[in-house]
């Protein structure tokens, strides 16, 4: 049956005027009439056009409603996104273009369907995507595609000075260097970006002293808890408290016995001398730590504030040179490591263990009375007698987190050598700390080095190096 004949038959059926058997011949002649054929052809053509037009409309609506997700970009970071025509089922989408990219520093390649470049401006943007459908004469259609460009995190950090006259104020940055017995010391302590961003104070602190008459050196480093209101004062009291305690007590009776114990220990190391040393550490360094706790408690009482507002970690080391080597005594509470590299830099000795909770930032503080009662208190002390050492370092987690990341890395000498290389200029900024004893600028060099960028690590940074 011809197209027009079958169309006619369907039309008549639909309208309820079926062709009865006696009119078959008449119908055939009617259908074959050129006028009828012509009319049917025209109707069919109109129908086809209508169908095609509808399909185009519906296709455009589908394309415009389809979710097109392209990844977020970041200012300054090379960006590459693909509008995957294959995956989107857009084989019929042609002559595409995208508007709105230029001001973002990006460009669209219609052949590859890629958006590339390095974003220059941040924001939540709507791009206009224009296209045509293949095989259809039409105007360009348009839809939007969302693209999020994050700001460059570096550009967001503000550097607001802390109020110079606020309660318990302290300088934002400090750096010192000097002689420490026959060794040298350099210490820098820097306010972290998280504090600089809001104009708050540095919570870290440090203090050191060489006691000329007894030849002992004391170095203390403390990190006030970010969550505690006046922990900056806590860390200051802790560091100064340690220096004051030993300045007052080392010349006294209790401390004099250590010389004799160490001498015997150096000559003939035995369980007996080890035991005496442990007892000495426990009593004298333990007392020093407890005296700091008491000072903090007293301060809290006077300031009418809970002691937890003063939460601070504390590490300290006592160093003395004897004819038989260097004695190094340490104590630590919190998550700040003390590491000593041997003369050849082939071995690292960790002089304390770290209080690390199961979640980030969780640790213990010198302000927690329970640490003194814990059976682990005795294990917080460290002792080494060595011929010599190359570097003895005390650092807060602001250094340890970005540079060593996890505890296990502290145990590997390779990581310490990498850390030394970093200090020696092997870093993105090319800043070198020159450990030549004659270098007068070492403090400012260490301070400059400490500005290193590390995503996610914006805590205060304190590093003390005895070399």
């Amino acid at each position, binding site marked *: 049956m011809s197209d027009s004949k079958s169309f006619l038959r369907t039309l008549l059926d639909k309208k309820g005027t079926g062709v009865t058997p006696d009119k078959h011949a008449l119908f055939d002649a009617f259908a074959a009439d050129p006028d009828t054929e012509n009319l049917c052809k025209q109707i069919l053509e109109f129908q086809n056009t209508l169908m095609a037009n509808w399909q185009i409309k519906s296709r455009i609506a589908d394309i415009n409603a389809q979710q097109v997700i392209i990844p977020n970009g970041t200012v300054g970071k090379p960006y590459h996104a693909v509008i995957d025509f294959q995956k989107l089922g857009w084989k019929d989408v042609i002559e595409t273009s995208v508007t709105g990219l230029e001001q973002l520093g990006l460009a669209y390649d219609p052949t590859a369907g890629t958006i590339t470049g390095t974003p220059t401006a941040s924001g939540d943007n709507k791009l206009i995507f224009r296209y045509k459908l293949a095989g259809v004469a039409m105007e360009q259609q348009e839809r939007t595609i969302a693209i999020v460009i994050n700001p460059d995190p570096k550009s967001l950090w503000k550097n607001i000075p802390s109020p110079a006259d606020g309660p318990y104020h302290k300088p934002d940055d400090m750096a010192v260097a000097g002689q420490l017995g026959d060794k040298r010391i350099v210490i820098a302590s820097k306010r972290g970006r998280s504090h600089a961003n809001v104009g708050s104070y540095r919570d870290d602190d440090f203090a050191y002293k060489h006691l000329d008459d007894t030849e002992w050196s004391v170095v203390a480093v403390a990190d006030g808890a970010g969550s505690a209101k006046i922990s900056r004062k806590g860390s200051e009291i802790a560091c100064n408290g340690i220096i004051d305690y030993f300045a007052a007590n080392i010349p006294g009776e209790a401390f004099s016995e250590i010389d004799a114990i160490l001498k015997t220990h150096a000559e003939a190391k035995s369980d007996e001398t080890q035991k005496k040393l442990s007892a000495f550490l426990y009593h004298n360094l333990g007392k020093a730590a407890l005296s700091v706790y008491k000072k903090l408690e007293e301060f809290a009482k006077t300031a009418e504030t809970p002691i937890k507002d003063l939460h601070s970690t504390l590490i300290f080391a006592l160093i003395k040179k004897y004819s038989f080597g260097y004695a190094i005594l340490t104590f630590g509470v919190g998550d700040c490591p003390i590491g000593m590299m041997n003369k050849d830099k082939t071995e690292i000795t960790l002089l304390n263990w770290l209080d690390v909770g199961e979640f980030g*930032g969780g*640790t213990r*503080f010198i302000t927690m009375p329970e640490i003194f009662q814990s059976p682990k208190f005795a294990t917080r002390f460290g002792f080494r007698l060595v011929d010599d050492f190359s570097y003895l370092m005390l650092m807060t*987690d602001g250094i340890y987190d970005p*540079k060593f990341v996890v505890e296990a890395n502290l145990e590997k000498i390779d990581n310490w050598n990498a850390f030394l290389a970093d200090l020696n200029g092997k870093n993105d900024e090319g800043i070198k700390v020159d450990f030549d004893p004659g270098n007068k600028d070492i403090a400012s060099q260490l301070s400059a080095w400490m500005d290193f960028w590390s*995503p996610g690590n914006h805590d205060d940074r304190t590093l003390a190096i005895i070399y």
Partner: protein
Amino acid sequence: MGGLPTIIFMRRLPVYFLLDTSGSMYGEPIQALNNALSGMINTLRSDAQALDSLWISIITFDREIKEVAPLTELVSFQLPEITCPQSGPTNMGEALHFLCDKVTAEVKKSTPTQKGDWKPLLFIMTDGSPSDIGLFKEAIPKVKAMNFGAVVACAAGPKAKDEYMKELTNTVVHLDTADNSTLKQFFKWVSDTIEMGNKSHGTGETVSLPEPPSELHLVI
């Protein structure tokens, strides 16, 4: 740098949103919620600290529990349109169980070789009360054992029941209405709270929350 690829080990602040999409949220409230969330994400995107460490997960609950946005870093996060059915129950209990499984699987704890995440934060918003009370009661000790840095529950609108929320956490915020401006205020405060999340603290202590704006009533 110091030889170690620090970026891989970055310490994350995981933040979970548990949002009520039951029938009663249909219409203006869900629109207001979408607007407020989008505003919050934009605010956080311009926060240096958040951009570096924040990871966000959004779970919705009505008759079904849906993870509409799996835990994703803020930098790559794309906020989905949150929709809700026109009617149906509020399966908050089931949602809490689902959440606990997610947190257990996703949040990293410190080990000698792995950097632990910051304590995760949880924000729950509802405009009603749980329909699955049995499951809800069972979920309470489970949620507490998750060790969240903070759990903030928001009861929005006149039908929201504070007392269920109080069983979950001490921090319950009551909003009189779930309209655009109130929700915006609330989520602004949420972003302030998030900014408190990545600070060192004593083991076992929780995150201290900033003062809420006067529009929000802290339920005592």
